[in-house]
């Protein structure tokens, strides 16, 4: 255990080892570690970001869905209302139409009846006149007694 030339040998060995380590061992390893650390942190960040995006998208989807449902409900409500209105309107229109038709029928019937009555009256008058003429052919002058006949016709 004396100090001897081994000291020099060991020193040289030590210097060579440190030099080698500094040149060829340390840099690649520490670079790889740092690179990987960066990669991992990037990956973690990306994952976090994706998670947030996903949450946002889901929230958006939920909102849109809610909106769509609301819209659909509104549309259905509207169409129901419109349907009801249409039915009501049509019913109303039908009623009116019917009444109109009925009224016009009545009118027609009335006017026809009047016309027929008029005609009948005229024919009856003619018939009465001709009958009377035949009966009292000799007694009555058509022109002299026309006012009496007229009165008679009006009474029919």
């Amino acid at each position, binding site marked *: 255990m*004396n100090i*001897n030339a081994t000291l020099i040998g060991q020193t040289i*060995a030590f210097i060579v*080892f440190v030099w080698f380590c*500094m040149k060829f061992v340390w840099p690649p390893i520490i670079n790889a570690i740092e690179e990987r650390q960066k990669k991992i942190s990037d990956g973690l960040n990306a994952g976090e970001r994706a998670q947030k995006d996903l949450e946002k998208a889901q929230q958006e989807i939920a909102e849109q869905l809610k909106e769509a449902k609301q819209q659909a409900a509104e549309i259905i409500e509207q169409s129901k209302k419109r349907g009801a209105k249409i039915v009501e309107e049509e019913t109303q229109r039908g009623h009116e139409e019917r009444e109109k038709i009925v009224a016009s029928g009545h009118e027609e019937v009335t006017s026809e009846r009047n016309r027929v009555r008029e005609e009948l009256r005229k024919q009856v008058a003619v018939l009465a006149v001709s009958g009377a003429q035949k009966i009292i052919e000799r007694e009555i002058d058509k022109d002299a007694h026309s006012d009496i006949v007229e009165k008679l016709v009006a009474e029919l």
Partner: protein
Amino acid sequence: MISGEQTPTQYIQHHLQNWTVGEGFWALNVDTIFWSVLLGVLFLWSFRRVAKKSSAEVPGKWQCFVEMLVEFVDNSVKESFHGKDKLIAPLALTIFVWIFLMNLMDLIPVDWLPTAAMYGGYWLGFVDDPHDVYMKVVPTTDLNTTFALSLSVFALIIIYSIKYKGMKGFAKEMTLTPFNHWALMPVNFVLESITLLAKPASLALRLFGNLYAGELIFILIAMIGFWQLPAHFAWAVFHILVITLQAFIFMMLTIVYLSMASSEH
């Protein structure tokens, strides 16, 4: 115990003897250098494999482990050292892993490698007597290793001091603290020098002391016969803490010393 012919003293001494080639100061502890370089190469080779393949893709298991270590060291450096520096982090990683691996040799049962070396050396014909083979497998129980590390750190402390504070700033710090008066310059210089020199000395001696003591206890346990088995186990479990802690302390103190050197007080 490996041999009945040895007395306990001989056994312990045998275990604490380095395989040395050469004489005097120029002697080399072959075992220390062999094991430390082997472990250093193992460390760099296995980490280099990860570094070559490393990418930001999904990592494999070994890559995960290496990256865990790298990140741990990187965090330790970032906590203490403010500013950009390309050297400190890899330096800290090398110190931590290399020292840890060298300390880890302590957990290999204390007789295995020396015994293998003994008979291997004998059979290969290097020695006439197996007991002439010495093999200390824990490089950090050799002061040469711990001082090589701490003196390198010491050199870096001085380099960083000059680099960040300039020659003048460093000289000022050495002479004008803690007493800011020109007459006390020599006193300051002595105090600051001691502070400065205590750093590498404490680094080296702390590591060496812990590991040497641990090794010695393993050796002592190895001599108590059958009951060494549970005792070895217990001490090894405790020692796992020590070897990791010592590697960590060395690394942390290096970072702290260098960050102190590179910032104004």
